[in-house]
């Protein structure tokens, strides 16, 4: 009896079994975690090959098929997100080996791996799901595992932030669930295909609004961002990288998906979404300029970047729909890679210098040069300088906006870019100034193995920009962005 295993099942079940094994055998957790990560990455590559060769793949679980059963579906967009998740996840895991090696961190080591693998199960599940109730369950898996990771360090600030995060997560998920209820009331089915071409009745508009607000709470869209900076800034470095690089993206992906299938909201509502995004860009920028600690600055820049992605959503008005969805997808990918690199680098800098107060970065005789270089590379992608992936995303956004005459969104993008230059410069200044060092300079910390993972991520954030064309054509496999042109 041979078992037919599909790559999609593996992408979800391998991390799940890994989590179980890592929880059962705490001493071998790190090894199990790395093996599970590597195997999951293999499954994703296998899936990517399948999708590349034969287009979107569908797996009707239980053989029932939607709408009665639940289908898994992988198309270009989902595979790209899966690839982002496993690539970033693998590298963050490698650097977690180093970040959690301290003698007093045995508990963190023991719990990091099961929680992270459960998180991976949830994230991969989101990217393959085609059923809105299943999405609800998946975001709850993600929420619980993510809160567990947030409070890993066990400090009071982290637990406080974790509790706020938990409240926001539960409320967001419940709003989403209420939206699911309204979809069921109106349509009597829950699969994506059933949502397509539905008449926008009152119940469906309520459902869209509820789901959007719920997801906005989970992605921390301004003004619902209150929980994010504390949660991301107080977590340990690998957890911050996972939270900021991957967890937020899952909810963003759901917004992106639902926007394809749910009835089209009115232009005014879209403008409102864009305004919220613009508010996030401005407010996140201002707070990043005012932040006193490096990790807090990075966390606020996440708020700003997410706002930018929502601006891309909003610009997908009646005109240039496909283009701006692609821009949003590119920005999601770029932000995932670069922000993970940046949080890891910030963690490294904090570890080496002993603090992460931005004002005192230039007073330190210790200069973790490689981590600083990594930070700068990631910043280049986040600012959107060519040839990084962030540049391509912003370019696509502005090009589309100009083509369809939405000049105000171009202005917002520009302002956001300038602000990100400004707040990242605060950090660079600290890196590059030596005149305020009292002690003899010379304790430059050179290479460390721990820098390899973030550096790879940062180079990827830059280098992927050169491969934008293949990425874009891969994203289109299976027409995730609406009908075939």
């Amino acid at each position, binding site marked *: 009896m041979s078992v037919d295993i599909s790559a999609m099942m593996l992408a979800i079940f391998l991390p799940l079994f890994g989590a179980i094994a890592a929880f059962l055998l705490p001493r071998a957790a790190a090894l199990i975690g790395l093996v599970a990560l590597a195997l999951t990455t293999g499954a994703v590559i296998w899936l990517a090959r399948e999708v590349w060769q034969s287009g979107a793949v569908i797996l009707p679980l239980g053989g029932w098929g939607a709408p009665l059963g639940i289908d898994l579906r992988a198309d270009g967009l989902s595979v790209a997100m899966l690839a982002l998740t496993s690539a970033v996840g693998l590298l963050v895991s490698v650097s977690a080996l180093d970040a959690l090696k301290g003698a007093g961190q045995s508990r963190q080591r023991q719990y990091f791996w099961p929680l992270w693998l459960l998180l991976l199960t949830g994230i991969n599940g989101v990217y393959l799901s085609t059923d809105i109730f299943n999405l609800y369950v998946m975001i709850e898996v993600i*929420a619980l595992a993510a809160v567990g990771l947030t409070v890993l360090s066990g400090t009071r600030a982290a637990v406080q932030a974790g509790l706020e995060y938990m409240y926001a997560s*539960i409320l967001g998920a419940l709003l989403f669930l209420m939206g699911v209820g309204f979809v069921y009331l109106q349509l009597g089915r829950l699969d994506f295909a059933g949502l397509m071409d539905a008449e926008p009745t009152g119940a469906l508009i309520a459902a869209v609004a509820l789901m959007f607000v719920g997801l906005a709470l989970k992605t921390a869209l301004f003004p619902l961002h209150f929980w994010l900076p504390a949660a991301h800034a107080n977590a340990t470095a690998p957890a911050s990288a996972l939270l900021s690089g991957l967890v937020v993206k899952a909810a963003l992906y759901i917004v992106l998906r639902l926007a394809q299938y749910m009835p089209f909201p009115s232009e005014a509502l879209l403008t409102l979404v864009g305004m919220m995004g613009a508010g996030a860009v401005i407010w996140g920028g201002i707070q990043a300029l005012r932040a006193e600690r490096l990790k807090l600055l990075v966390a606020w820049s996440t708020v700003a970047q997410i706002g930018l992605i929502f601006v891309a959503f909003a610009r997908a008005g009646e005109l240039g729909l496909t283009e701006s969805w692609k821009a949003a997808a590119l920005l999601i990918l770029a932000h995932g890679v670069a922000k993970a690199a940046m949080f890891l680098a910030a963690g490294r800098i904090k570890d080496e210098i002993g603090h992460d107060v931005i004002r005192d970065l230039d007073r330190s005789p210790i200069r973790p040069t490689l981590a600083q270089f990594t930070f700068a590379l990631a910043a280049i992608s986040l600012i959107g300088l060519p040839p990084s992936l962030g540049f391509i995303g912003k370019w696509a956004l502005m090009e589309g906006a100009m083509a369809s005459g939405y000049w105000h969104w171009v202005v917002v993008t520009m302002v956001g870019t300038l602000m990100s230059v400004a707040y990242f410069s605060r950090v660079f200044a600290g890196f590059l100034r030596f005149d305020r060092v009292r002690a003899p300079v010379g304790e430059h910390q050179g290479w460390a193995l721990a820098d390899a993972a973030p550096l790879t991520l940062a180079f990827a954030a830059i280098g992927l920009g050169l491969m934008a064309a293949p990425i874009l054509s891969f994203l289109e496999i299976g027409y995730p962005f609406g009908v075939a042109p």
Partner: protein
Amino acid sequence: MTPDLIYGLTGIAVFGIGLVGALCVQERLRRVLALKLCSVGAGFVLVVGAWREPPEMPDPVPHALVITGIVVMVSATAVALALIRRLQTLEATDER
């Protein structure tokens, strides 16, 4: 006045009450309870959607969904409460 109408509006009212609580209440324990109220409200809407006039059997799928929702909610509640207890202990030791 049919049961689905009455209980549907009840569910929405409970959801709204929970929402007010989740946004306005300061006490940590009470906020958890407010969120639980929201989830009961959402459960009402799904169960009402499943209801059919008596000779007909109700639709079982939303029932299964609500059961799932209840179990998910108790898990989330447990984590939130554990955080509250931990935070309380930390605050007590910090003040000591």
